[in-house]
């Protein structure tokens, strides 16, 4: 579902991502962890085609993101950390617009939008302008938009900011349910407890290098420490950059 081959991105003399090789299968929840500036967001932007790799390739749903970006993006749902929403559209109009971008049937969009907005708790504000939404509501609307076209791969960048505990619990459950349905979820986060709770596998990136991949148990076995947080801090300590 997601595959990278020697994926590399440099900004001037700095290598933000260096020969990244990884694979995430369908029906798998993969958490992508790393300290600030480790290369997580750059990797996500390479996977979504928002950056051009300096070398290497990225595949989404078996399609090279650079060679056939439209096919790759059709299979993709992306929830950025700071989602862009059209402030002068209502929530419902925004979802109709997204449905149009994915060439969905109008009636299907109406039904799906209603269902998703109800599920994510924004149906009550569906006909308000987005500029009147709180940060959390905007986040929920961007979740609704990302799942509107039934994507095969979902990439989520630090999605928990601004969400209340009830919404966090709902979204955790929803993402797990989608994974059970066969979707591949790739989540970048700093919240280790959630990564530990939800992930089938985790990848830890530091200084642009993937320094550990595996289940939480496998990674914990790498270091003789007590908690996953301890292991993460040990692995990403200064000097351990692969």
């Amino acid at each position, binding site marked *: 579902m997601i595959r990278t081959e020697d994926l590399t991105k440099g900004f001037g003399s*700095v290598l933000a991502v260096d020969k990244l090789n990884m694979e995430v299968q369908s029906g798998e929840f993969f958490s992508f962890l790393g300290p600030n500036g480790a290369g997580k967001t750059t990797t996500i932007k390479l996977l979504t085609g928002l*950056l051009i790799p300096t070398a290497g390739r990225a595949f989404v749903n078996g399609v090279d993101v650079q060679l056939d970006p439209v096919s790759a993006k059709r299979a993709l749902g992306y929830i950025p950390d700071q989602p*862009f929403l059209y402030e002068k*559209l209502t929530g419902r109009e925004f979802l109709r*617009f997204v449905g149009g*971008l*994915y*060439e969905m049937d109008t009636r299907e969009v109406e039904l799906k939008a209603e269902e998703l907005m109800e599920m994510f708790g924004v149906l009550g504000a569906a006909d308000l302008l987005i500029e009147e939404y709180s940060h959390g509501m905007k986040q929920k609307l961007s979740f609704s938009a990302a799942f509107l076209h039934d994507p095969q791969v979902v990439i989520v960048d630090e999605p928990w900011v601004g969400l209340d505990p009830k919404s966090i619990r709902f979204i955790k459950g929803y993402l797990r349910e989608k994974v059970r349905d066969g979707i591949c979820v790739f989540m970048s986060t700093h919240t280790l407890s959630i990564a530990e709770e939800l992930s089938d596998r985790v990848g830890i990136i530091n200084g642009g290098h993937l320094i550990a991949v595996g289940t939480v148990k496998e990674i914990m076995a790498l270091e003789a420490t007590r908690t996953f947080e301890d292991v993460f801090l040990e692995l990403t300590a200064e000097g351990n950059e692969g």
Partner: protein
Amino acid sequence: MRRLLALFRAKWCMGIHEIAGVRKQSKLKVCVVAVFVLALWLGIFFLFYKGFGFMKRFNPGGFGPEMQTIGETVTVRIISLLFLAVFFMLTFSNVLVALTTLYRSSEVEFLMSSPLYLSELFIARFAECVFFSSWAILFLGSPLVLSYGLVYNAPWYFYLVAAGFSLPFVIIPAALGVTITMVLARVFPHLNRPLLIMLAAAAVTGLFLYMRRSFDVESLSSSDQMLGAVLDAMKNTQSAFLPSFWAAQGLLSSSVGELGPTMFHFLLLLANGLLVFRLALYMASKAYYPGWAALRGSGQARSRPRDRGILGRIDCWLGFLQPRTRSLIVKDIRVFWRDVSQWSQFAFFFGLMAVYVANLRAAGYYYLEIAIWKNAVSFLNLGATSLILATLTSRFIFPLISLEGKRFWVIGLAPVRLRELVWQKFWLSFATCITFTLGIMVISNVMLKVEPLLMFLSCGTIVMMNFSLSGLAVGLGALYPNFREDNPAKIVSGLGGTLNFLLSIAYIMVAVGVQALLFQARTLNLIPSDRRFACMVAGVTAFVVLVSMMATFIPMSLGLKNLERTEF
């Protein structure tokens, strides 16, 4: 195609919501803006109507009724010149608008992550670019077309033809401007800073030389040669290879009912518009995505040593100020300087000012030999410098308070009173703007060889205007802030920004107008004695000072009160 339609439908909805949002704005603000916009349109219409009427009758050679008068010949050339000027303005405007619309907008990132083909994305952004760069030109062009049609009794379809010509006419400069931006975005990230500065300097020098040559009035050394020189100078606007010429000729042909040439020029314009757009689309397929991605990745970490460079030393230079005020000023200057779109517009603006001042030298040779022109040119110069000041304050000072909005937690939690913040913006505006405008005033007055009294009055007026226009911009910026927007250009284009600009213009008209009338009355010997004139000068000066004080303190006070009431 469905995806593009979805995008255009969404834009339409946004436009409707934006218009509906006007109802939520202050009624007074909406009314003032509407009245001023209408007055501006009517003013332009009136000027063109009177101008075309005069030119139609202007026939010193005494050609017969069956022949075109000299005035009509000049009118044709003036229209061609206007179209040419609009063409170049649109091209330049599109270069700037494309930088924001195609590259810097966060909407592009969202659209890039959606399954839009690059060509669809480009077409959508191009359409937006055309709209944002051209609507004002079309708005201001409509009184020209209407007045010409009325003066020359054009048939009804002349107006339809004008509307039809406008689309292909704006597409050509838009496609050119967007293509230039795409090339620059592709090339510039790979250039080093000294080379960039050299290129910019070469471009400004080239523009300077071209404009000096094109608008050379030194040759107009006597009134006998004037008409011939004017017609000669406008000859270049008549090149059959210029789209502006096709538009002007097509429009003029339709005004006399010649449908054949009208259709020919329309098709010529349309065919070339489509061709240039197709070339832009081709360029987009090659350069847009790599350029966009390269610009996003071109920000490299650079350490900025504390005491090096101008920005590093400002702190030390402003050491005489209170630490709080100094921090605010240094922050504003650094943020401004590090935003490329801000200072690049400022630099271009400064280049145009240099061209204006350089051309005054030539104006001095001719106009100042005639007494009646002497005052007129001096006050036109004062008006022009004031308009430069109004543009500076409207574009760069008005958004300052709004830009604090999202970061208000920093200043709001610091021991800084709002009064201090607002007055700091005021003094920053005053100090920076007066450096440029007083300098221009002195240099231009010297070039125009104005009398000492006029020099003193015009410099005094400019100082007053720096006070009042800074007060207007900062005060109205605080009265009508837009805390949601990060883009200063968008903040300025809102109702508050428009109101600020219009009130600035109104103030300038009053302040310059009363002084100009007084001096013109003296030149025409309408004031009997010098003593009477001196009294009137004192009276007019007192009036200008009073109006300036009102323009400074009323908006500042209203703005401050509004900020104190605002919840962040």
